[in-house]
């Protein structure tokens, strides 16, 4: 009974880390970024590159099967992924924005990028599954019948730290305030002297950085595959919509619901239908609460 709660929270943490970026592009750039999954993937593969460059394995931290080498790699991968995302924005999305292209055009461009990104990863890194390191996870019993791998604790801990940092950033820094201002009213923001272009850059950087963390931890927990991020896209979108798209904290709550739903589906032997069940839950919530769990009515 408790076991799936524990599993659900771990996958919720990963979904939420990835979905923050979707939520931010949705509210600030105002389109559903279908390429977010590939940002996770690219982040995970950059981490792999750095792990092999550092050449010290992924280390350990007490009972946790990863340590400083992996964490340092993730930090550098965050920067590399951000650069890639900024270049893509500059080449593709910025000209479309300047032309005042319809939101649908942006979604379409993202959809195309998603496929391209996935296939570029296949071309460059190969299509076969890869791993950061081989290790044997040792589960420990935290409650009678509930076994958790120490790495799962570490993942949940990292996610909580990331959310806390995000919360402080959004509420305590000038850039965070500017981002909230742009997400609410871009015109008034400009009148106020906010440089929307700078805000957009930070939107991509934060979204890409958290996605890199999500991608790397997911890859550590499972494996690296070119489709790994794409497979996360529907749960991430579902988290966004469930939480009420205009609300960052709603997205985290939405991710929790999705993570637990997935875990329940798995425990009922419906693992193959996991994404479809997620989707059904999303549709049902939309039917009765179109504004999502924490969203305001329009």
């Amino acid at each position: 009974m408790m076991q799936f709660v524990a599993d659900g929270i771990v996958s919720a943490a990963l979904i939420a880390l990835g979905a923050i970026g979707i939520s931010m592009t949705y509210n600030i750039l105002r389109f559903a970024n279908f390429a977010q999954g590939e940002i996770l993937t690219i982040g995970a593969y950059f981490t792999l590159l750095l792990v092999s460059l550092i050449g010290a394995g992924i280390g350990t931290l007490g009972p946790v099967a990863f340590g400083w080498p992996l964490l340092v790699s993730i930090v550098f991968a965050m920067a590399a992924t951000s650069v890639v995302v900024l270049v893509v924005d500059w080449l593709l999305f910025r000209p479309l924005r300047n032309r005042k292209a319809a939101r649908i055009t942006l979604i379409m461009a993202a959809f195309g990028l998603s496929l391209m990104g996935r296939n570029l990863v296949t071309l460059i890194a190969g299509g076969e599954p890869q791993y950061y390191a081989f290790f044997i996870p040792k589960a420990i019993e935290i409650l009678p019948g509930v076994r958790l791998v120490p790495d799962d604790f570490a993942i949940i801990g990292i996610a909580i730290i990331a959310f806390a940092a995000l919360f402080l950033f959004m509420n305590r820094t000038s850039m965070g305030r500017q981002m909230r201002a742009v997400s609410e009213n871009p015109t008034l923001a400009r009148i106020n002297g906010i440089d929307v272009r700078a805000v957009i850059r930070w939107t991509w950087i934060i979204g890409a950085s958290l996605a890199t963390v999500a991608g790397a931890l997911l890859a550590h927990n499972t494996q690296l595959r070119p489709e790994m991020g794409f497979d996360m896209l529907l749960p991430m979108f579902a988290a966004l919509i469930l939480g009420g798209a205009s609300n960052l904290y709603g997205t985290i709550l939405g991710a929790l619901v999705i993570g637990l739903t997935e875990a329940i589906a798995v425990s009922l032997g419906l693992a193959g239908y996991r994404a479809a069940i997620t989707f059904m839950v999303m549709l049902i919530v939309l039917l009765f609460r179109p504004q999502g769990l924490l969203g305001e009515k329009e």
Partner: protein
Amino acid sequence: MVEPMLAVRDVEAGYNPSLPILHGISLDVFEGEIVTVLGPNGAGKSTLIKAIAGLLSISRGSVTIGGRDITGVETHQLIRERVAYVPQTENVFAKLSVEENLALGALHNPDQFAEQRRRVLDLFPDLERLGHLAAGKLSGGQRQMVAVGRALMADPTLLMLDEPSAGLSPKLAQVVFSQLIRVKQVGVTILMVEQNARAALKISDRGYVLAEGQEKVQGDARSLLDNPEVGELYLGANSRLARS
């Protein structure tokens, strides 16, 4: 001759390049003045302010501030020219607290934040106790104070207001106008658009009447107030001046 602080010369602008709304408007605002722009609905008053603020592209003419050409300035640079603008609607960040709204106002002069905040709270003492509330939760009059207060946080020399009394009760509108007099007294020049012609002209030094994208009548506030032609010809049936 005194240089105008804001000089709008023969400006043509609109929402669509092929369909200008303003057909060659000229207007001056001198330091220390309150200037009111009047005109019927759809005359292009808001359009004029948006064009000055760089929200619309200007296809002809020029805008200068203190002698510097700011035609087609990027809107977010306006505040560096020390021009602040309070739009007609949606002029506060509703989800942000009053304090956060004020802090955003001082984005480019954060070192003056405390000083400007003091100045704004002296003008609008009510804001002090509302500080932590979301601006969207405030009443119309309070919201207008937040909007003007936020604009003043940037320490502007010119403040542009689009219908500051819109949607307020006559009594509250009066409060807003008397606050504007105090804003003028602390050394801020004001350009405002108003429907509430009589009350606005009472606190103004000069005024312009706009119709069909051009300035039709101009003069000092007194003469406009006494000019019967202004009411009949240009303010439209639903203006207060026409009715009174």
